[in-house]
C-alpha cells in the first residue's frame, strides 16, 4: 500500500499498487478508531482478569494465547471470555444499528429502542416465556428475533408512502413501540410469578450467564451484516443529502434505504436475542463517536467500536460495583450512556450559546 497526501480533502488516500483499491482515510477518525480498539482490548483483559478468582493481566494474555494452566484456562475460556465476547459483539451490533438508523432517519432519536424495535423484541421474548411457557435460551432468542422483525415490518409498512421518510418512521415507530410495550407489561401482569420474574430479568438486559451458545450465532450474524452495512456506506452518505440529491447522484434511494433498515433491524434483533433489550447503546454510541471523531457522515466503524466499548465498560461496572448483586448490564448502560449523552449535549449547547 502506498499513501499519497491530499490537498483539497482532508485525510490521506490509501491505495493498492495498481490503484484498484483506493480508500480515503481521515486522520482523526482513524486515530480515534485505533484508540478505541486499544481501549477495547485493555478493557476486555480487565473483564477477563477480575472476578471471584482474579488473574493477572499477564496470565490472561498467556491463557488467551494458549499457554495457561488448566484452571486459568477453564476460568478464561469457559467462564469469562464468552461473556466478554458477547458484550463486544452485542455492543458493536447495537452501535452499528444505531448509526444506520440515525443516518437513515436523519434524526438523532431514530435509534432502535426509540422506534420500537427493541420493545417488539421484548414482547416476542415475553410471549415465549409467559404464554408458551418456555425458558429455553434458544426459544426466547427466537421469540426476540421474531418479535423484532414483526415490529419492524409493521413500522415500515405503516410508515411507507412513496418510500420511507425518516420523520414518519420515527413517529410511527414510537407509536408501535408503545403498543409493544403495553402488550409486554400486560403479559407480565397476567403471568405466573416465576415466569414474570424471569421475563423481567430478561427485559432489563443482561449478560449474566451468557456463553458461547449466544456468542457464536451472534458472531456469524455480525460477520454477514457488518460487511453488508459497510458496503452500503457510500449510499448512506448520498442519502444524507436528501432524496432528490441522492437520486440525482445515481443512488438507489428506496431500495438502498430499505436494505439499510433491514440490516439495522437484523442487527438489533440478534443483539437483543443474545442479551435482552439493552438500553441506550444504539442511541448514544453513534452520537458519542461522531463527537469524538468530529467527522460528518454516518461513521459506521467508530460507532460500532464505541458501542462495543460502552457495553463492555458497562458490563465491567455492572459486575464489579456491587459484586454480590450482579446488576443487569442494561441498567448500567442506561445510567452511563444517558449521563454521558446529557453532558455532551449540554456542554455543546452551552458552547454554542457562548460562540
Amino acid at each position, binding site marked *: 500500500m502506498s499513501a499519497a497526501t491530499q*490537498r*483539497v480533502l482532508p485525510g490521506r488516500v490509501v491505495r493498492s499498487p495498481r490503484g*484498484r483499491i483506493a*480508500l480515503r482515510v481521515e486522520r482523526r477518525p482513524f486515530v480515534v478508531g485505533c484508540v478505541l480498539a486499544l481501549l477495547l482490548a485493555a478493557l476486555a483483559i480487565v473483564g477477563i482478569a477480575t472476578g471471584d478468582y482474579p488473574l493477572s493481566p499477564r496470565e490472561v494474555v498467556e491463557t488467551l494465547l494458549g499457554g495457561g494452566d488448566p484452571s486459568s484456562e477453564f476460568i478464561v475460556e469457559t467462564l469469562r471470555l464468552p461473556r466478554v465476547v458477547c458484550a463486544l459483539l452485542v455492543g458493536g451490533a447495537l452501535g452499528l444499528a444505531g448509526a444506520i438508523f440515525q443516518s437513515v432517519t436523519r434524526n438523532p432519536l431514530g435509534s432502535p429502542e426509540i422506534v420500537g424495535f427493541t420493545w417488539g423484541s421484548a414482547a416476542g421474548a415475553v410471549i415465549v416465556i409467559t404464554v408458551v411457557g418456555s425458558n429455553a435460551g434458544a426459544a426466547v432468542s427466537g421469540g426476540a428475533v421474531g418479535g423484532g422483525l414483526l415490529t419492524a415490518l409493521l413500522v415500515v409498512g405503516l410508515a411507507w408512502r412513496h418510500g420511507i421518510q425518516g420523520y414518519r418512521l420515527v413517529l410511527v415507530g414510537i407509536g408501535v413501540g408503545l403498543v409493544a410495550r403495553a402488550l409486554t407489561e400486560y403479559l407480565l401482569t397476567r403471568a405466573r410469578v416465576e415466569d414474570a420474574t424471569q421475563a423481567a430479568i430478561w427485559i432489563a438486559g443482561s449478560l449474566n450467564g451468557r456463553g458461547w451458545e449466544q456468542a457464536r450465532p451472534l458472531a456469524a450474524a455480525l460477520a454477514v451484516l457488518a460487511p453488508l452495512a459497510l458496503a452500503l456506506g457510500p449510499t448512506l452518505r448520498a442519502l444524507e443529502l436528501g432524496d*432528490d440529491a441522492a*437520486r440525482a447522484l445515481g443512488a438507489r434511494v428506496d431500495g438502498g434505504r430499505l436494505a439499510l433498515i433491514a440490516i439495522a433491524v437484523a442487527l438489533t434483533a440478534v443483539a437483543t436475542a443474545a442479551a435482552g433489550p439493552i438500553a441506550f447503546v444504539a442511541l448514544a454510541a453513534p452520537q458519542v463517536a461522531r463527537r469524538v471523531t468530529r467527522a460528518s457522515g454516518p461513521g459506521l466503524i467508530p460507532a460500532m467500536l464505541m458501542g462495543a466499548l460502552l457495553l463492555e465498560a458497562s458490563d465491567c461496572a455492572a459486575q464489579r460495583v456491587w459484586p454480590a448483586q450482579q446488576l443487569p448490564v442494561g441498567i448500567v448502560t442506561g445510567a452511563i450512556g444517558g449521563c454521558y449523552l446529557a453532558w455532551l449535549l449540554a456542554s455543546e449547547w452551552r458552547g454554542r450559546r457562548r460562540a
Partner: protein
Amino acid sequence: MTEARLSGSGLRLAYDDRLVVDGLDVTIPDGSFTVVVGPNACGKSTLLRALARMLKPRGGTVLLDGADIRSQPAKAVARRLGLLPQSPTAPDAITVADLVGRGRYPHQRLLRQWSPDDERAVAEALAATGTTELAERAVDELSGGQRQRVWLAMVLAQETPLLLLDEPTTFLDVAHQIEVLDLCADLRERHGRTLVAVLHDLNHACRYATHLIAMRDGAIVAEGDPSEIVDAALVERVFGLACRVVPDPETGTPLVVPAARRARVS
C-alpha cells in the same frame, strides 16, 4: 433540427392524481443555456424533474443519448446528467470539501472510493465556484449565497456534460442571483456544458438564456432565442401581465417592464 442529447416526447406527468403536464414534447439543444419560465404551478419544475429522472412519466419517454433514461443504470445516467434540487439538505456539521466530494458518488466504486480524478474534479469545482477558501468551513455556518455556490460545486464535481438546476437563484439576494447566473453562463461558454434551469425572474432569463422555454398550464407556449420570441404579447399570454418590452440597456436583450397600474407616477 439541432443535435440533442436530452429530449422528451409525449410526456404525461402527474403527482398522485393531479395531471400537471399532458403530451409535451421538448428538446434541449446541446451546448445551450436553456431556461424554463412560466407562472407558478405551470409544470416547469415538474418537467425538469422528469428530465432528470426524478419523476416517472405516466406516458411518453425522456431520451438521454438516444435511449430511454429510465432503462439506463442510475449511476451511468448520473455520470452524464446532474441535478441541483430545489432544497437539498446538508448533513450536520459537514464541511464544504466533504459535501462537494460527495458529488463524486457516481464515479466511485465500492473498493475504489477515491481516485486522482476525484481529487482534481473537487478542486476544479471549488475553484470554478470561488469556494476554494471555504473548503474547510462547515456548510451550516455559510451565508445563503455561499451555500448555493457550494451546492453548485457539488453538482459540478459530478462532471456531467448536462446540468439541470431547479430554481438555483431562489432565496438569494439580487447580487448573489447575478453571481450564480454568471457562473452558469461561464460553465456553458468555457466548459462547454449544457445547462437547463428553472428561473422565476423573466429579465434574468432573457439576459442569460440562449434558449428560452415559456410554459403555461403544462404546455410550452413558445421557445427559442429570447430576443426573437419575447414581446409584450408573449408575456401577456404566459403570465397574464400587461407590460412593455424594451431593450436591456446593458445587453440589448428583452427587458420586461410591467405596466403601471396603480403605481406612484412622479
